[in-house]
């Protein structure tokens, strides 16, 4: 019976929580950085165990199903590689005195706490618990965004805190409304907040109440996804925080918020009389895509540019899930996975670049392929991947999104393709200056490793060339779970 404590679903929560508790007490940063990697690695291994475990029956507070296993495994994998990158990055920050050992202690504890919060949000079976977890994740990232304590970092953190909290508040109101809708049908208490109880009864819920609830939930969690027009916090938070945090924000936290939206979307789709949640997601997704595509042209800060690219890609993903149906859902899942891997690898590369050049201004970072061939070409590869060039993974997922849209709603495909082309143009315009031409700034060699970056790119390239059959089957199954738009 005691072994129940050791099942993978519990471990993905216990390992980071325990690591956070130890790291907060550990004064030596060198050991702390290694412990951080080790804890992230064990969390990832536990997450892999989710594939093999006996699923909880849904009466507890944790839920493991085909949908969230995908998210948890992706989450812990990128969390693990980011912790490797972070160890090198943070050592340098300490060297140049941007961070002090006390702040590092805090940083590592917060990193594990964030991993805990995200895993809890993904595995929670209770809507209220999921909300608490997302709130905790917001809090930890706010603190990490502000960790440099410069004017810009504080402003970014403050903006993120205010907008994130308002979003979280709206999401809680939506959660309460869902409880109100469920309570007459399934009775009072915890049952009216369990996904496993809500879903089979969703058809009997009051549709009007569900509609209003979904609007609040979409606004609330949509703020955290970074969908336009609720995205204002995102570029600042990405640009001013430490780069490992930018990678985690873009690659993981946005996905966690999206997962919350998807869960409620499934609930709404199960109620025939409620509004279809799909068109709302499609509208917000397209707005984000087109808006971010144009905003990409005016960027002068390299991290901010990739932050806008994240808005663009979250828009594509929301669009795909909004379209619904097996093919679009499949494309959305694939795109989400590919975007997480690619974008975090890009932020790792950008972290190396800004560290060498000592600036984030695009104008001061020129001709990287001349001065740092390895780094420069890695950036070229990253931008090619994120822009969706074949044969990389994002090409495949974008192709699937576009082709499924053409076959069902040709009119919607026009703004979609337009946004994609505009953003590709913007990315390559900026890349041209960054990677080619006469080098500017420091030419100090890069001393940090490429292992996390190449691990990600290898996966993205591999997925672009060949998707293993079990993965395709798994994604197809999840796509069916996600249902119509």
């Amino acid at each position, binding site marked *: 019976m005691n072994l129940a404590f050791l099942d993978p679903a519990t471990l993905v929560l216990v390992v980071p929580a325990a690591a956070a508790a130890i790291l907060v007490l550990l004064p030596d940063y060198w050991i702390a950085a290694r412990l951080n990697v080790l804890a992230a690695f064990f969390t990832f291994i536990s997450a892999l165990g989710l594939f093999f475990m006996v699923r909880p029956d849904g009466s507890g507070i944790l839920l493991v199903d085909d949908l969230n296993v995908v998210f948890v495994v992706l989450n812990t994998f990128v969390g693990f590689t980011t912790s490797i990158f972070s160890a090198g990055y943070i050592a340098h920050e300490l060297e140049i005195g941007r961070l002090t050992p006390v702040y590092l202690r805090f940083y590592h504890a917060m990193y594990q706490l964030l991993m805990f919060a995200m895993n809890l949000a993904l595995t929670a079976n*209770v809507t*209220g*618990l999921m*909300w*608490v977890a997302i*709130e*905790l994740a917001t*809090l930890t990232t*706010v*603190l990490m965004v*502000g960790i440099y*304590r410069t*004017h*810009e970092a*504080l*402003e970014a*953190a*403050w903006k993120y*805190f*205010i907008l994130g*909290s*308002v979003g*979280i*508040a*709206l999401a*809680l*109101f939506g*959660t*309460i*409304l869902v*409880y*109100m809708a469920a*309570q*007459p049908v399934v009775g*009072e*208490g*915890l049952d*009216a*907040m369990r996904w496993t109880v809500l879903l089979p009864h969703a058809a009997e819920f*009051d549709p*009007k*109440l569900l*509609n*209003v609830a979904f609007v609040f939930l979409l606004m609330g969690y949509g703020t955290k996804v970074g969908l336009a027009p609720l995205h204002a916090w995102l570029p*600042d938070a990405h*640009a*001013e925080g430490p780069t490992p945090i930018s990678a985690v924000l873009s690659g993981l936290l946005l996905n966690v918020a999206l997962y919350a939206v998807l869960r409620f979307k499934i609930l709404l789709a199960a109620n025939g009389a409620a509004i279809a949640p799909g068109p709302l997601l499609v509208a917000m997704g397209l707005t984000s895509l087109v808006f971010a595509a144009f905003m990409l042209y005016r*960027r*002068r*800060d390299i991290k*901010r540019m990739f932050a806008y690219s994240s808005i663009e890609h979250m828009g594509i993903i929301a669009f795909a899930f909004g379209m619904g149906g097996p093919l679009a859902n499949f494309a959305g899942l694939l795109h989400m996975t590919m975007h997480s891997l690619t974008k975090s690898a890009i932020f790792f590369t950008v972290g190396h670049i800004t560290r060498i050049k000592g600036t984030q201004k695009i104008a001061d970072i020129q001709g990287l392929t001349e001065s740092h061939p390895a780094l420069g070409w890695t950036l070229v590869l990253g931008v090619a991947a994120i822009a969706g060039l074949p044969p990389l993974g994002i090409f495949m997922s974008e192709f699937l999104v576009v082709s499924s849209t053409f076959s069902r709603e040709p009119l919607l495909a026009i703004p979609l393709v337009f946004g994609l082309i505009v953003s590709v143009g913007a990315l390559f315009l900026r890349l041209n200056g960054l990677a080619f031409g006469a080098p500017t700034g420091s030419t100090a060699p890069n001393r940090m490793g490429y292992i996390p970056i190449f691990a990600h790119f290898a996966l993205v390239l591999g997925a672009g060339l060949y998707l293993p059959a079990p993965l395709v089957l798994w994604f197809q199954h999840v796509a069916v779970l996600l249902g119509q738009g």
Partner: protein
Amino acid sequence: MASLAFDTSHVLAGSLVLLSFLLLYQVRMFALINIFALHAIALVLAILWQGYIQNAPSLYVTATIAFVMKAVIIPIALRRVVIRLGVQRTIETVVGIGPTMLAGIGLVALSMVVMLNVTMASNPLAREDLALALSVILLGLLIMVSRRYAVTQVIGFMSIENGLILAATGAKGMPLVVEISVAFSVLVAFIVIGIFLFRIRERFDTVDVAALDRFQGERR
């Protein structure tokens, strides 16, 4: 009894909305903080009454937490922040008081129309509570957007939280998870505010958010 229960909770929730309006037109910092404390006390009374009529002792815990945190500790802490940071004692608003009040009335009307319409089937007690709670939340949002100071934005945010707690307690039998979460969020707000104000004071002469704006990365 049913009618008394209904009327009392209606009065308490309604007074919360009225206090939100008072928050909306305050021009002096200390008055704003005092009225926020009153806002919290009205919330505590509303929670206590809900706990009594729903026969839910767990709500008394929520009420105690809300009282200690929001009616006592946070107002005192904010007063000290204002004094020690030398924050300007009068509040500059982004738009005038008149238009803000009109917008507030509009928001209350909106929340009534929306909530009363969609909750036909629910029990009338929860219905009214929910409509008034949404009014408090929307008014809190209005306070946040119409004020320029960090302190006033924090008060706006906490009045939103008050509205959320009102909604959560009005929903009958809402499990403890949410009460914990709400208490948790109070704590969170408190810690974050403390840290933020501490940091902002270290770095800036003012906690006016517009002062931070000047340093925005890409403004040319």
